[in-house]
């Protein structure tokens, strides 16, 4: 699926120690035209709509998402079924709205869990250095060899199908990505004289790390974690697509696409296309917002 690994490889531009001096702005910079403006607003609207649909699905959904109506297979969109029905005559709109709940909640939990775990481990590695850093680096290396989806599949193999085990597994799989970024940022901050200045003023190491350095790296780490959301969503949906995630009859975007595959061959595209478009739209929206977020924060760093 969408590989999470990309975010653990620092963008080449961030590998080099960046000069913090305001250089004369004659060099070419990241394209400005992609951020701000209409695109960001559209992304925000899409995301808010998805979240609202998910939260209020039981009240908003026009039909019972699991009610089978074999007289009404593959119905075209109509007033009764805005998005039509699937192979069992279930209302697609209602299934989409209920499916949004698992589709969004899973990634949210993974992002929050991996961010907290990763930031603490990264801070610990960078601040303590020495053998702590060495051991943690080895642990991160090890976890990188297990892509998130693989770890999630292994978790299912061990603990059975469902969402809980994969979510925990993916939070663990994403944690080293956050941790490496945090570590790298904290190391860079540590080099900056202001940290030495705090020490010289008599502030304690733990206080500096938690109250001064951590807040300084949090925005960048947070923005990067936001970008992970899209990947996680795609991967968890992929897991459902494989039939290993959320189990029937509960609806999930991934499993909806899976179920719709049979109809695909006989030309019934809608039941597959609607969840597919939803997945892509939400991923795009989250990525646009995440990049906007990251860019603004990057610009704020003096």
């Amino acid at each position, binding site marked *: 699926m969408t590989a999470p690994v990309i975010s653990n490889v620092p963008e080449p531009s961030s*590998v080099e120690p960046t000069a913090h001096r305001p250089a004369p702005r004659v060099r070419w910079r990241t394209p400005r035209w992609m951020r701000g403006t209409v695109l960001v607003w559209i992304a925000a609207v899409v995301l808010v709509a998805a979240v609202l649909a998910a939260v209020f699905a039981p009240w908003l959904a026009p039909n019972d998402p699991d009610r089978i109506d074999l007289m009404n297979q593959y119905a075209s969109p109509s007033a009764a079924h805005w998005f039509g029905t699937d192979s069992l005559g279930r209302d697609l709109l209602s299934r989409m709205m209920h499916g949004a709940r698992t589709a969004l909640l899973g990634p949210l939990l993974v992002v929050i869990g991996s961010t907290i775990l990763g930031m603490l481990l990264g801070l610990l590695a960078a601040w303590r250095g020495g053998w702590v850093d060495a051991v943690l680096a080895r642990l991160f290396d090890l976890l990188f060899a297990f892509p998130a989806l693989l770890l999630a599949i292994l978790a299912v193999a061990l603990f059975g199908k469902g969402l809980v085990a994969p979510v925990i597994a993916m939070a663990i799989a994403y944690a080293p990505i956050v941790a490496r970024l945090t570590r790298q940022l904290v190391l860079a901050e540590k080099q900056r004289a202001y940290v030495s200045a705090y020490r010289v003023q008599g502030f304690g190491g733990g206080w500096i790390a938690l109250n001064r350095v951590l807040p300084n790296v949090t925005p960048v780490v947070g923005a990067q974690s936001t970008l992970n959301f899209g990947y996680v969503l795609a991967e968890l949906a992929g897991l459902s697509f494989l039939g290993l995630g959320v189990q029937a009859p509960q609806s999930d975007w991934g499993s909806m696409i899976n179920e719709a595959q049979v109809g695909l061959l006989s030309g019934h595209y809608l039941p597959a296309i609607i969840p597919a478009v939803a997945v892509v739209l939400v991923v795009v929206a989250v990525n646009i917002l995440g990049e906007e977020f990251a860019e603004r924060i990057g610009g704020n760093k003096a």
Partner: protein
Amino acid sequence: MNIVRSVGGKLAGLVLTLFLASLLVFFSRFLVPGDPLSFLLRGRKPSPEAIAAVTEQYGLNLSPWEQYLKWIGGIFTGDFGRSMQYRQSVSEVLLDRLPVTLGLVIIAGLLITVFGLAAGILAAVKRGTWVDKTVVVTLTAFGAIPSFVAAVGFIALFAVQLGWFPSFGSGEGFWDTVRHLILPSAALALVYVVLIGKVTRSAMVEQLGREHVEVATSRGLSPAAVVRRHVLRNAVGPILTVSGMLVAGLLVSSSIIESAFGLSGLGSLLVQSVDRLDFPVVQAIVLLVVAVFVAVNAVVDLLQPLVDPRTVAGAGAR
């Protein structure tokens, strides 16, 4: 990590990572509460002989470490145990499935290299122009398409609607196989083309801002020579590193693609084995993916000094 980054150090690191990974894969089973025998035989009604066979094979009456040694020792002799769902050894099952996955990954790799590099180079060289913008927007859009969505979309469009490619199965003979694999490979490659394209572009743009590029320009070199000798050449390191990191994801993604296209490769075997509670096969495939990933990245690491001589300097006297 103050290990001197020499070849020896890297190989030691490789062995250590593989060792730790094998521990993780093996002992993960011990995280499951309850009796190991009932875990391994979940969903089956085993005969007493089968129970005896599984107990013997896993050495369930031995201590955990002895079990591990027995397992890892078997792997060194090519013995991954016996499959629960097939009446075959795991290694036989794996070998049966290997060719399809290999073909899929090779074709996808070619697509990724060609299109990813081309897109990245084009965008970087034309940076700031409409060409760059078009490439970046296209990449960003494609990047948001998960491979299972791509698979479904490709089947609907190219197989069902247009009928250009078969939608199912892996075909007979070389060319038919290739024909059957093109659509799955493209679906698999899509996300990685985007990733490599973006990395190539940003690595090159980063180099374009470097002073040595300006110096080369000031010496009267042609733009093509500057890009080739000073921009692309210097961007190879980061691109290579990222490529190595992507291998694991590519292998796992193939499980989704194979399932969607009904290919019987290792990926679909993994999913099927999870579904059918065939833990020995799951264990073997996970270990295989990890081993390939670690090996590929060790090779990338070893290539790095050829790409950037400064990495040799780090090795120092050792």
